[in-house]
């Protein structure tokens, strides 16, 4: 199956690890990702905070490119997804066949893929206790995202169960980590992310699983700083769902992707006999 792929700027930089796991896992499920040619930045929080027109025109150009290509678009970044959907709502659909904009997590957890995955498990993630952390913008607001389950999404939980891991229930699945303020107001992040660590631990989790690279960076890059500040010595690796998918399906690159996080998940996974 061919789809257009809109990686977004950070997957070319700080989230190169996410990009690598996505490119490796998609073909395992028979998905061919065709990078949308000449895509541009969606403008992110900066554009919607400072210039409403720009915040629609930048993703609007990507939407035009995608409609010309005529394939559904898959987007890993929650904010890029949200902005592309916002642009879609603002413009009339010109094509006879509408192009659907997918958030990568939703796309890869369609029933057909979940069935495939459970049948082809090489290394079930038995004993891994995780909380699925969805963040904000792949879900909210539903008028833009068209999601039916914005308060309690379950796609990642269902995937984790299919992979053999234990997806723990917790109430902070879609609570904001504040990633947009990570650079300008790190003190605010310490409070928001510290709260997520504590809630994840209270649920009995050993790690977070995420689908948004901003959530990943915000929970991973800050962990030593927050540990230092609170004296808590947190050890909560932050894994991409695609990394666990690759690991469970036996992709040889998995250990390599995992080595690129700041909070090293390898001791946790090795302790479970998964690496």
């Amino acid at each position, binding site marked *: 199956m061919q789809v257009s792929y809109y990686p977004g*700027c*950070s997957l*070319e*930089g*700080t*989230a*190169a*690890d996410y990009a690598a796991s996505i490119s490796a896992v998609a073909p395992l499920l028979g998905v061919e990702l065709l990078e949308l040619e*000449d895509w*541009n*930045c969606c*403008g*992110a*929080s*900066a*554009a*919607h*905070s*400072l*210039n*409403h*027109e*720009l915040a629609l*025109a*930048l993703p609007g*150009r990507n939407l035009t490119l995608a409609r010309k290509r005529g394939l559904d678009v898959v987007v890993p970044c929650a904010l890029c997804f949200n902005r592309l959907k916002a642009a879609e709502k603002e413009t009339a659909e010109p094509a006879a066949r509408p192009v659907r904009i997918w958030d990568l997590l939703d796309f890869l957890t369609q029933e057909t893929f979940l069935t495939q995955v459970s049948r082809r498990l090489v290394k079930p993630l038995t004993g891994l206790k995780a909380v699925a952390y969805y963040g*904000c*913008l792949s879900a*909210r*607001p*539903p008028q833009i995202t068209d999601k039916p389950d*914005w308060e309690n999404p379950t796609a990642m939980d269902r995937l984790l169960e299919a992979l053999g891991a234990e997806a723990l229930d917790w109430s902070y699945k879609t*609570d*904001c980590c*504040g*990633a*947009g*303020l990570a*650079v*300008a*107001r790190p003190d*605010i992040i310490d*409070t*928001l992310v510290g709260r997520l660590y504590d809630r994840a631990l209270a649920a009995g989790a050993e790690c977070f699983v995420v689908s948004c690279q901003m959530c990943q960076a915000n929970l991973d*890059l800050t962990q030593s*700083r927050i540990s230092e500040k609170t004296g808590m010595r947190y050890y909560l690796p932050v894994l991409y769902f695609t990394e666990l998918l690759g690991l469970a399906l036996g992709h040889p690159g998995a250990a390599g992707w995992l*080595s*690129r*996080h*700041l909070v090293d998940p390898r001791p946790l996974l090795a302790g479970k006999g998964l690496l």
Partner: protein
Amino acid sequence: MESLTTEGLTPSTALPARLAAQFSVSPSVCYQCKKCSAGCPLTFAMDLLPDTVIRLALLGQEEALLRCRTIWVCASCVTCTTRCPNGIDIAGVMDWLKEEAVRRGVAVPQPEVATFHRYFLDSIRRGGGRLSETALMQRYTLFQLRRRPNLAELVRQLKLGWELFRRRRLRLWGPPALKGRQDIRAIFEKAGA
């Protein structure tokens, strides 16, 4: 957070009229249930609660709103908009106020946030369509150092940069030149950004 009273305020109709024209649901349908503030994860860093922002907007209190900290520490998580029983786009109103504050040259109480956003957009424009995270962070770090020289913070930043670099997550060269860089320039010009 200061407790707020609307006593003694002189209402003005200009701002509510502009907001009613801008948004598909006019903020005037607010019945002050405060669900927006109850679900907001950022209230600890705000000077006005989200419901107060809407209330003051309806009373036309532009001065207070354009100078408040709340609009800049709002993380745009959109929980307020999502849960508003009347369908008011509260996060959208926050964005509208930010844009208006910058356009009018109001002294922003959170220059870090406003400057980061502006550098972000500059980076897209200069790069011809895509963001260079490295260039953005270099420029922002210099801005912060000029404002408040802090050696420990600089060391922390450099250490983080190194940790990312050795994991091949720091792209030192800029983004690729887009074929459509003229489109990008036109988009920026038209939007006045």
